[in-house]
């Protein structure tokens, strides 16, 4: 009974924290476009918080610059369970155009923290980001909330 109630509430209210680990800012702009009235992220119960301590979902953008290696792990540790990580854009997946000879990017992000969903594109469409969050977010959060730690 209590678990069921918790599930419903968790599924309908997803708090999101956006972390740019050294990208070109293009994916962040697409996330901001999601917040705008045209796409209206909050109608799905998703709220962009930018505070890892209150977040359920971490949105990672950027190719993981040298100084972000330990900081990203700290942010991941700060996020309370249950947590879901969504990598947005090509940068966290392969490093994209930054992954050139001699550049100091540490992509993929999945080498450092576990990634639950990947959205490819440079940048991805806002709807693709939304679909990824909704595909992985509610169920994973509800399922992880029931885990006995």
């Amino acid at each position, binding site marked *: 009974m209590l678990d069921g109630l918790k599930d419903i509430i968790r599924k309908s209210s997803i708090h999101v924290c956006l972390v740019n680990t050294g990208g070109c800012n293009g994916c962040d702009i697409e996330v901001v476009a999601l917040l705008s009235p045209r796409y*209206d992220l909050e*109608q799905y119960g998703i709220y962009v918080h930018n505070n890892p301590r209150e977040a359920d979902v971490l949105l990672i953008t950027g190719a993981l610059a040298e100084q972000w290696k330990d900081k990203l792990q700290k942010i991941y540790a700060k996020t309370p369970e249950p947590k879901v990580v969504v990598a947005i854009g*090509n940068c966290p*997946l392969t490093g994209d155009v930054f992954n050139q000879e001699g550049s100091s990017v540490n992509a993929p992000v999945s080498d450092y923290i576990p990634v639950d969903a990947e959205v490819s*594109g440079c940048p991805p469409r806002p709807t693709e980001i939304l679909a990824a969050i909704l595909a992985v977010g509610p169920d994973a959060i509800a399922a992880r909330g029931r885990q006995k730690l």
Partner: protein
Amino acid sequence: MSSVIWYLYEFARKSWAENFAAAKSDKEIMDAPDRFRNFPEVHKEYCIACGACTAACPAPMAIKLVRDEDSEHEDGFTYPVINNRGCIRCGFCAEVCPTDPKTLTCGENHLIREDFTILPVDKKFVIDDYLCIRCKKCMKTCKVGDAIVEEDNKIVIDQSKCISCGECLKTCPVKGAIKGIHISNVEEQKEIINLVVDSLESKIEAEQDKIKDIKGSDVYSFDISAVELIEEARKILDDDELIDDIIENITDRLKLRLITWDKNKCTNCRLCVKECPSGAIKYTSEEGVIRNPDKCLRCSICYQTCPFGAIGYYISRFLYKRDEADKLIHVTVKTSDLPVRS
């Protein structure tokens, strides 16, 4: 007061409740429009394996050319494979694709179409195993899947897959480890190589007197102008780029061994005459011991035999500066690592 009642009345209406419950973005907004330039689609049966898409692609890991295995009846398809995790959806590959109908298609493009012609390549790229340091940078930059492979701890270019784009040459950190070899006019190329090596050797031997003074780990270096050499090579084959390439390829790898002969120290003991494997050293009572350079193998046995230090053994290396106007060949000579008797 009445305004508050009207405000609350808004919420009491049925249409408001319906809209509130079923609020959703328009489908039109959520769907990608037709003009949206998505990840390119590949129609592999049209591909001619020209490599234009890989050359135009600005993302480092978006496109690889892949060749299917040959079946009994026909050759395997060669076609590009798009890695969605690296593709930035710029559409340049679809724009430059020269086939008709196009191998790669995506939504609307913005790149202004330029005339594209496939350049016939007269080069074959090979890896010199002697110089290769196995850093595998070429494997990473290669635009073709599996064209550069590791076999028996050697990095090898698979000539059946290589499209001769020359990308590997640009990234190779060792000068001369990957080289482009011209595949036409092989006989003329041989003549030029012989000409270059012979004239280099004669020019170094002309410096014998200075080379004799090299001691221990000292290095004697000097420059030779290659202008005359190029003039002569032009008589064999009039292609400046080819001549430059040949001279560069030779000098990157060439290690000339040099034997010097100090007549004053020679005591005519004739030990070397017996030891020489090619019979290049002769003794006559009038002239003493004489070495014939045309027969000599530069094996250094005479140098190791001679108890009086009359014979010197040196190794010279070369660096060709092709981009400079005066076309200098830089020569460095040093003593060999063999033990010295003096």
